[in-house]
């Protein structure tokens, strides 16, 4: 089963390798990982997506918690949360397909951020499912490149995840 986990860590040298090393060293897989500092400069927030059965997930969260640099671990899978990902997509276009591309961009409320005679570069944010959706529709035109940020998540409601 897929799990999306938020980890608050000390924003210090080597933290990323501690986290990724924990996964590689124990044979857990990371599907995606995104990291950036929080409002508090000495804290970073990581969002990682992983897969495994209950026992593996229990180990993953326990092992994450065990790291000295880790301050908080939240597995969002069982709660309500909002998930957003950013993708930049370079798609081949010609005179014929251009209108169709723009229509798709419009439907998905995406944006064209760079244009050449042969291509559009499209920016889209949304749930990973939405991004998969637009990719599916653009695929026949020829996708030259896709860059995805991996999802970031935040819980629903007034309460935040804080140190």
């Amino acid at each position, binding site marked *: 089963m897929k799990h999306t986990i938020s980890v608050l*860590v*000390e924003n210090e*040298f*080597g933290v990323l*390798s*501690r986290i990724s*090393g924990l996964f590689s*060293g124990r044979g857990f897989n990371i599907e995606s990982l995104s990291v950036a500092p929080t409002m508090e400069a000495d804290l970073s927030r990581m969002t990682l997506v992983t897969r495994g059965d209950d*026992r593996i997930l*229990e*180990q993953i969260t*326990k*092992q994450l*918690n*065990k*790291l*000295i*640099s*880790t*301050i908080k671990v939240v597995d969002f899978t069982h709660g309500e949360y909002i998930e957003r990902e950013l993708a930049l997509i370079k798609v081949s276009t010609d005179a014929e397909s251009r209108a169709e591309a723009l229509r798709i961009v419009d439907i998905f409320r995406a944006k064209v951020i760079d244009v050449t005679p042969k291509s559009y570069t499209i920016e889209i944010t949304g749930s990973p499912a939405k991004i998969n959706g637009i990719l599916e529709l653009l695929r026949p035109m020829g996708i030259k490149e896709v860059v995805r940020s991996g999802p970031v998540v935040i819980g629903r409601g007034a309460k935040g995840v804080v*140190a």
Partner: protein
Amino acid sequence: MELTGSQILLESLKLEGVDTIFGYPGGAVINIYDDLYESPINHVLTRHEQAAVHAADGYARCTGKVGVVVATSGPGATNTVTGIATAYMDSIPMVIICGQVPTPLIGNDAFQEADMCGITRPCTKHNYLVKDIRDLARTIKEAFYIARTGRPGPVLIDLPKDIQVTKHKFSYPDKVSLRGYKPTYSGNSRQIEKAAKMILAARKPVLYVGGGITLAAAEDELLKLAEQTQIPVTTTLMAMAAFPQRHPLALGMLGMHGTFYANMSVTECDLLIAVGSRFDDRVTGRIDSFAEKAKIIHVDVDPTSIGKNVDVDLPIVGDLKDVLGKLLGILSQKSELVEDSVESTEEWRTMIYEWKERHPMTYRSSKSVIKPQYVIEKISEMTDEDAIITTEVGQHQMWAAQFFTFRQPRTFLTSGGLGTMGFGLPSALGAQVAFPDRQVIDISGDGSFQMNSQELATLVQYQLPVKIAILNNNYLGMVRQWQQMFFEKRYSQTVMELPIDFIKLAEAYGATGLQATKVDEVEATIKQALETPGPVLMNFKVSREENVLPMVPAGKAIHEMVLAS
């Protein structure tokens, strides 16, 4: 007061109560060694950095204090890695200080540069690269705190050369504030209450005790609990000395080379109380049949140990001393129920004693060749079971666990988790430094001994009267045993072709060398070794193809043992 980084280091060590460190100098720590020259801290110069770490490890295991190591950058630092991994696997508190190239050169493939934080990340509890002199004192404070609290472990500090000479005002913090590190000490009272109920309801309970019991210094509580409830105790390799093995409730070791009666007890029990043990594969054998009929209570300070390998009915996270103390408190208020339970478990103990009678821990004795087990029995007897025993890794290690009758905590120092050949001699060295007046004996194999034999020099230099007993089968015996049993006796690379003259080797270093080739020389050899001052090496030429039994073949359940005939 302004001090240099290396002075700050040494002052901090003093404030942490460190009086002895183990190490080896080099360019990147030369400033530390210069300051050490006039420091009251005692430094032991081993002949290899790996040995320095094992020595600090042995020192830590027998005292409960944090072992401290200093090594230079690059090769000095990488030499420490096996020692660090050994300590990590057995949760030994230790602080390793490595020199590092100056901060502006880090990452440049500078001379004798190695990324020690990268290399040791998976085998330390935590590690630090100190990049600013202002962080140094706090880092040392945190390192010691992390090493000795919670589930203990080694912490490495990488200290660049320029930081060692930079001056800064010294003030040692009296508190640590680590928001990401708050070990749980106090066991949940409701869970402990439940544990008491389960214990009182059980008909066939067994205590399965691991090295955590010694890390928490909770051996007294364990003994009280066992005696109060009359629950039999089986110990892992790491806990053999944590429960008096002569005690009627002692079942000895369990697992791959465990006793018949320990393994049967675990297989048949209806309640398994795991205390500071971690269901290691060498203990459990085929995991799905391990304690199949039992409810499991698991007490450990490290939540990641609980539920990792087996499903647990009642997890209790906490310091073992706290948890067992509270459990004893609850039970002492229910003395009538405890009496009832002792009565209703009588049958169970009778069953276990029958198993024990049927298949005691034994071996076929001989008058013509020296049996390695016999040597261990004699050493046990002739030291009043009071010596600190260290081991290397192999058959001799298992025989030491099986045939030495331990009766005092912290007297059996062995590499359980990593299984590091070469651990025994340097850890004995460290133990002897900690206890100059106690008898310290390294039970060794001819293969393992050669992995750190250079430490004979250290023993002689510091006049450390460690006795070394090599059970010499001229084989990498444990591997040979597997080859005999599972590879049709194809002894690939396990025959030590060159019969080494260990007596001459000992003498070359200025130690005493003794040898026994016949059964009736064994006692005299041990006696002479114990009476000879200074380090003594005993070379026992033992029966070569002796096997460690019982044995649970890999992949089998622990009751499917090959027994000694």
